């Protein structure tokens, strides 16, 4: 187990840097995580992150892009714009959740 300091928070992370403790995440921390991968959080990003956090608490796994689009009503196209390149993994990282395991 690895403990690292991001900003003023000490958090548990896995080998890749994803947070491993759901309760250590805050929106302020998310801004720092996002900045580390070149993303400046806006209210549009936060809407996605809040959905991911709430959905994870209910489902026990990280939502896929399709789930975010169908359940939160945020179009897939927008997710690719907000989190370019590898949107599902970037969203999960900033939301302090594990990478999604679902295929679709």
């Amino acid at each position, binding site marked *: 187990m*690895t*403990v690292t300091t991001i900003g003023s928070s000490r958090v548990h992370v896995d080998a890749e840097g994803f947070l491993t403790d759901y309760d250590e995440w805050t929106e302020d921390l998310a801004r720092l995580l996002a900045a580390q991968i070149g993303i400046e959080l806006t209210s549009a990003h936060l809407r996605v992150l809040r959905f991911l956090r709430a959905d994870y608490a209910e489902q026990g796994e990280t939502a896929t*892009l399709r789930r975010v*689009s169908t359940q939160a009503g945020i179009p897939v196209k927008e997710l690719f714009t907000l989190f370019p*390149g*590898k*949107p599902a993994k970037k969203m999960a*990282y900033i939301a302090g959740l594990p990478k999604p395991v*679902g295929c*679709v």
Partner: protein
Amino acid sequence: MTTTETATAIVPDFGDDAPTGRKLAIICSKGNLDMAYPGLILANAALGEGVEVDLFFTFWGFDMITKSRMSDLKFTMLGNTATHMPQGLGGLPGMTAMATHQMRKQIHDVGVPDVPEFLDQIVDSGGHLWACRLSAEMMHLDENDLYDRVEGIISAADFIEKTAGAQLLFI
């Protein structure tokens, strides 16, 4: 469990610093419900990983992008030993309809969309859809008959040219 302290934060590598320019070309040649999905699922997965994806629909795969058929692909037990049912059963009247209904339900239950909606998601994710010119001519179909997010009807040679350097999947 031992705990390691790291001074500097570990940042996942999302590949943004060294884009690989990875490309995937998928040729969809089958029109059965069960054989439509592998290409769609792999295309979707690749797009989510930042890979550029082009899909080429040819021969029976044309059904996947033909407006009148794309919502009505079928699954048959005939010739498919993986159902582990007597082959004779598959030929009985109504069996293909029943097997199709069952498979649609299974696909729906795992949260996977129907073919038209899946194609929509692929295009929204940046994927490109191409129709095979020879298939269009053989089946007397033109742009008006095809799903409207197909970018064009092109020859096999055009597709090969467009996907230079891509990894290729033939399904």
